[in-house]
């Protein structure tokens, strides 16, 4: 028996929640960034599931664009993190408090 749409949406929701959990919990910028990627992947899973169950190609094509944007975003984001590390010698968010004080 095929698992239904609800099952896939549940998995996607749980993945998204775990990603958000990580963003709130962790202090390392790189791990936070990975958790953001996890949330993005959760949304792609939901989109592919909707696409398959409604029998249209649009959701799958959106996922194609999301993967493209995510790749570009990761490249720019990691370059920013490296530039930050060069100036401040840290990637821990609680030590990056220049705007706070």
């Amino acid at each position, binding site marked *: 028996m095929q698992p239904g749409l609800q099952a896939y949406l549940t998995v996607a929701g749980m993945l998204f929640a775990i*990603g958000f959990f990580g963003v709130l919990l962790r202090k390392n910028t790189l791990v936070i960034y990975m*958790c953001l990627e996890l949330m993005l992947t959760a949304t792609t899973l939901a989109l592919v599931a909707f696409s398959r169950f409604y029998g249209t190609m649009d959701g799958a*094509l959106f996922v194609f664009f999301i993967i493209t944007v995510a790749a570009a975003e990761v490249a720019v984001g990691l370059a920013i993190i490296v530039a930050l590390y060069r100036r401040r010698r840290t990637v821990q968010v609680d030590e990056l408090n220049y705007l706070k004080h």
Partner: protein
Amino acid sequence: MSAFLFYFFSALTILAALLVVLNREAVTSAMCMILALVGVAALFILLEAYFLAVLQVVVYAGAVMVLFLFIIMLLDTSSRRIHVTEMNLVAAIIALVALAGGAIWLANQYPAVAELPKIQELPTDQDPLGYATAAKTFGFGLFTRYMLPFQVAGFLLLTAMIGVIALSKRAPADSGDPVKEPRDTRD
């Protein structure tokens, strides 16, 4: 069989995702992230999105995560301890429970909002943008209905490339070090 594979890969994905969050070492987190992404690719295969599964493995688990691992090893943050405050932990767990509970409730509430579609047999030759497994359908969709987004995505990649080059180039202002540390000469 399909149900067994679905539960197996869902459990694998969610377990790996939890390990990403709870691991102390950033490198181990990245390894678990690769596992989670491969698990999602397996779920894509179960949804018969073969092309996207390949793309997921090649682009995400391949290129993106290798970039992550490279940066983690370059910055070498492994010696740092995580110091999680109690407040932080409580807030994160509340968010996890609320978001996961809400998402699961909403997913199972779905038939009340709209009629839930049943999974259909694949081949639909009449509709050119109907769901199909072949990579050809992607090409057709990209070059007809999604022509403009496709070109914008290309332009976005170009912009990202230029942005990364500009960011990684050492600006002249960079030599004034805001952190009062002796400037090292290794780079």
